[in-house]
């Protein structure tokens, strides 16, 4: 690939990914028909995505469910082969030499654990140390760094199956960084965690990125993660890249947006998006209160879905 400066951790050029899916028919008759069916349709999960991630960056990769985020991550890690286009991770094509690529990346899939289920965490660490052939000195330094960033003592000697979801996710993140890979992929690492665990994990990611200058590619649905970690975000929807810019740029547009949810007398929730710059939230609540009794009030940050809606509506590009 030409036109590279050597400072790129990940380069994607015109990457597309199509899946062949069998057209399923309805009902029992349809199921029997499917047994012999050659009727495939092509589903494009990722369409012509081009992006560059520089070394040491933490980049937020956002999009609604089914947008193609995980497919992109899987292509970058080498598990999936792109249908067309080029990908380079650490200067190498990930799917061509998967084993070699794996030594230079770390991966956390928020829903699954790569740790040894019935063994204490420390044993998983030792095993990973040997698998990745990490020198003992580097390994000890890394553990010391972990100690300085989070309190790992309570989890270190606990079997993974006995851990809470938060402890397990934390452990999985530590395991992904253990061999000090230049690039780490975090696929929805904060999914299902409580507020304090979320902030702990954010601090940890930030700390590791700062200490080791690790490039982090993060997918999430939580705008809080994005706020705390990412300087730059890329948004994809329906497989296409629709936004790629600084978070500040986006914040200028959406930082003042809040979702206001009101529970009315008839137990229905009314939802509205309010720009605090132009409208006062309290005014809206008061105006509503005159019309009907309000049972409950929720004020939320703007969700990724709404950001995407806004981008489509053309308020930021």
């Amino acid at each position: 690939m030409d036109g590279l400066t050597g400072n790129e951790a990940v380069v994607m050029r015109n990457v597309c990914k199509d899946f062949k899916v069998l057209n399923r028919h309805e009902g029992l008759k349809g199921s029997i028909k499917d047994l012999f069916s050659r009727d495939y349709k092509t589903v494009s999960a990722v369409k012509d995505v081009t992006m560059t991630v520089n070394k040491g960056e933490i980049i937020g990769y956002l999009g609604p469910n089914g947008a193609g985020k995980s497919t992109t991550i899987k292509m970058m890690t080498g598990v999936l082969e792109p249908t067309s286009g080029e990908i380079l991770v650490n200067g190498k094509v990930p799917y061509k030499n998967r084993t070699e690529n794996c030594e230079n990346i770390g991966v956390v899939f928020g829903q699954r654990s790569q740790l040894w289920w019935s063994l204490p965490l420390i044993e998983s660490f030792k095993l990973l140390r040997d698998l990745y052939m990490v020198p003992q000195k580097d390994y000890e330094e890394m553990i010391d760094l972990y100690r300085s960033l989070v309190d790992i003592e309570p989890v270190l000697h606990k079997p993974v199956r006995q851990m809470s979801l938060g402890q397990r996710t934390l452990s999985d993140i530590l395991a992904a960084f253990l061999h000090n890979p230049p690039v780490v992929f975090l696929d929805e690492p904060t999914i299902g965690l409580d507020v304090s665990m979320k902030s702990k994990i954010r601090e940890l990611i930030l700390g590791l990125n700062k200490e080791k200058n690790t490039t982090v590619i993060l997918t999430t649905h939580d705008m809080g993660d994005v706020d705390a970690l990412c300087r730059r975000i890329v948004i994809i929807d329906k497989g296409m890249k629709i936004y790629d810019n600084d978070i500040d740029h986006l914040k200028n547009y959406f930082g003042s947006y809040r979702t206001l949810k009101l529970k009315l007398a008839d137990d229905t929730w009314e939802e509205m998006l309010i720009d605090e710059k132009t409208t006062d939230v309290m005014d809206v609540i008061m105006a509503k209160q005159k019309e009907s009794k309000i049972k409950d009030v929720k004020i939320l940050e703007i969700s990724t879905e709404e950001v995407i809606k806004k981008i489509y509506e053309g308020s930021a590009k």
Partner: protein
Amino acid sequence: MNPKRLLALTRAGIMEALQFRLGIFVTLFANLIYLVLVYYLWKAIYASSGTDVVNGMTFTDTMIYLILATALFNFLEMFVVWDMSRSIQSGKIALDLLKPMRFRKYTFWSYTGNHVVQFVLTFIPTFIVVMIVTKGAINMGINLLWFIIATVLALVINYNIEMLVAPICLFTESTWGINIVKETIVLLLSGASIPLAFFPEKARMIVQYLPFRAVYDIPLSMLLGKSGSDTWQGLVSLFGLQLIWLVVLTVAGNLFWNCAVKKVTVNGG
């Protein structure tokens, strides 16, 4: 090839297997029930035959063979097919593919620890019990060394058979039936449920050259000094058969897996 990696995986496997100590006792107990059944079944067979020696094997010979075959089965048993189908359905396969080792090698060495534990906790006790009960019917000499070498080869052959069957679930998305078929074929044709000596002449001629025999019958023959394993010529031909199948199945397994993994990487499993 880095032995440290392989040892680390084996070590973790041993520790994991020891977590399920109750399972090991249950296996031993289940074996006992199975062997009681086998005992009476063969007793009836010998009683109805009217002679002491059937197909060149006495009742004691047959029992020793079958008891050790059962113990060997527990030791060699792998769950590659189950584990792979589960990890494909749950998507965990992606994480296994992201290990810095070739998948087939990584999978094999994640099982070795369990084999070590099973060998020590099920095979050796069974062997000792057989020795005590038969008052030392098994010769303790160089045959033990041949047996151990043959067993290690059998382990790899068995793994390769599993690895030829397991990727089929990538195409069928269901494993139960396939696994049952595989298990039945292996148990029958390997001599684990009926000694090969009892097979009809023509069937034995064919079965003798199949890879299944290399898993159970050859190591047991080595241990018991049967099938000519007490002569150099016999040893060479038995090891030769194992080695040929080892190479053939490894190559075939590699090709099939590389083709199957394409399905994961191209179509997302």
